[in-house]
């Protein structure tokens, strides 16, 4: 009983850390225009829309985050193997992984922009300096939180995988959660605020992303500000729930039917979420669905 209570405590802590990680991850990738919104940022100069948006194309989010977290976990593992205190080891691992992330971000922006020379897109050094540091800060938070989650699983819950392997698995999960949940807030909404709401992206509007702000020219920090409000927390809730429910079912039901209990509960959770998702989808389509004929003018 005591071990289950302890396990639930660790589960709650890991879920909370994962929520922070998800929120930071999504804000980081939106400031860098990583993931699917990247295609429009890349396309815009080719359509004649020069911009000051950061273009940090380092693979997709899941592989890139697989590397950052696996690297943070690998270095933390190495320091722990040298008898360094785990918290210090995780901080060092996250710091070094953040350094690698920052170097990748600068080379990606320089490479992509230099290859667009034909269309007259300049390299903005101030964009490089100010955005890279902000993405690095968010990346540090996300890496530190996720590596800590992995360490809690390994050390407190006795997960059989070594830390770097857990880092790889959860890093890919983190990238996938941020990519799937948070990106629409940036890629489908923020980049196209000048289009009719809910109109999708017509071919003619491809690359015509919003480039001017309330005052002056929009940069990626404005996009980070926007997506930190809804996209970030949504990604955080997504990744937090993934980690929490995964650990919760394992801690509580692992001992039923020689481990099959946890698997059955996992399948039930998936079914419950399918029902919820379907309900939300139908509800949203009914309320915000495709544009029909305007029913009637409210006034006049």
């Amino acid at each position, binding site marked *: 009983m005591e071990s289950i209570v302890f396990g639930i405590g660790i589960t709650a802590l890991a879920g909370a850390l994962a929520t922070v990680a998800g929120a930071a991850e999504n804000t980081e990738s939106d400031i860098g225009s990583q993931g699917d919104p990247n295609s429009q940022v890349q396309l815009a100069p080719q359509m004649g829309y020069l911009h000051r948006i950061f273009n940090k194309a380092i693979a997709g989010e899941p592989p890139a985050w697989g590397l950052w977290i696996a690297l943070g976990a690998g270095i933390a593992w190495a320091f722990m193997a040298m008898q360094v205190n785990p918290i210090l080891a995780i901080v060092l691992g996250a710091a070094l992984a953040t350094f690698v992330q920052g170097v990748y971000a600068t080379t990606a922006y320089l490479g*992509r922009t230099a*290859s667009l020379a034909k269309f007259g897109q300049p390299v903005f050094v*101030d964009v490089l300096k100010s955005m890279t540091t902000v993405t690095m800060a968010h990346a540090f938070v996300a890496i530190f939180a996720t590596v800590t989650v992995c360490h809690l699983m390994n050390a407190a819950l006795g997960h059989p995988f070594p830390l770097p392997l857990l880092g790889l698995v959860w890093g890919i999960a983190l990238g996938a959660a941020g990519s799937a949940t948070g990106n629409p807030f940036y890629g489908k909404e923020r980049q196209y605020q000048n289009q009719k709401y809910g109109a999708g992206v017509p071919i003619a509007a491809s690359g015509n992303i919003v480039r001017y702000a309330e005052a002056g020219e929009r940069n990626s920090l404005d996009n980070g500000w926007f997506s930190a409000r809804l996209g970030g927390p949504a990604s955080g809730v997504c990744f937090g729930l993934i980690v929490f429910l995964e650990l919760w079912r394992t801690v509580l039901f692992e001992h039923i039917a020689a481990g099959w209990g946890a698997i059955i509960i996992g399948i039930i959770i998936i079914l419950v979420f399918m029902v919820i998702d379907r309900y939300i989808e139908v509800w949203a389509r009914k309320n915000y669905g495709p544009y029909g004929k305007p029913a009637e003018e409210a006034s006049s």
Partner: protein
Amino acid sequence: MTVKVEKIEGGIPHNTIMVAGLIASVVLVYLTYANVLTGTQYFAFFGGLATVAALVWGSHTIKHLCSYGIGTGVPSAGMMAFGSGVIAMLFATKYGIAAPIVAVILAAVVGAILGYVANNVLNMKIPVMIVSLVEMAVIGALVLMGYAAMMSGSFELSALTTGSVSILGLSLPSYQASFLGGALIATAFMLGGIAIQHPFNACLGPSWTQDRMLYLAAECGFLSMIAAAIMSMPLISMGAALVSLFVAVIGWYYTYAKYIELSKRDAFSWLDSKPIPEVEGQ
């Protein structure tokens, strides 16, 4: 059916890069055998240099393959290389001193099978697919072997599965504290997998230039080597790990500076705190 949309103009031909990359990486992996001959671990850094050579070759292979219009497949090509290479690499470590050669041959076989499946079963019909996947698998195997040799001092299975833990001053052999037992191979996999696809992924576009991409490939290789050098600290002697770290930092700094210089050369303009330039017709 795909049509070749971009072609490589000028620069070093792909075959030259391939032959140079293959020879350099195999020779450099073998140079780590000097550890066994001399009884030290100071030659482990040659493993890291082998990965840099293989990654430079690999980035150009991806460019070669992706010039057939595979735009979104660039990052997955890196994963593919390492996924097929890791099988050959792990199997080959059983063969002692012959391991690098066995890894190359086995990886080529795995790559050829995958290429056949991709082209003839999945009907991708890309002319360079089989050759490229053979190259990618060989590169994946050599890079992983390079990291293994760099982090554990040797490319033999016994060295990859035994580390040592010191408890109260006593050094005890441990599977948990080894390259495979600690799953450092998972980190090595991602270090190589991102480093191999990043150069082309970052430099693609109409104004692509070969030298800029190859410098970026070397930069990514040295950057991964810095991380690998730090992770090698508990597995090999601290002196040897510091030698690796020193070599990696020097190489990284040189290639990074060179890459920025080449980006400056290729960029349309290099502006600091300037507004978006006016374009005619808007």
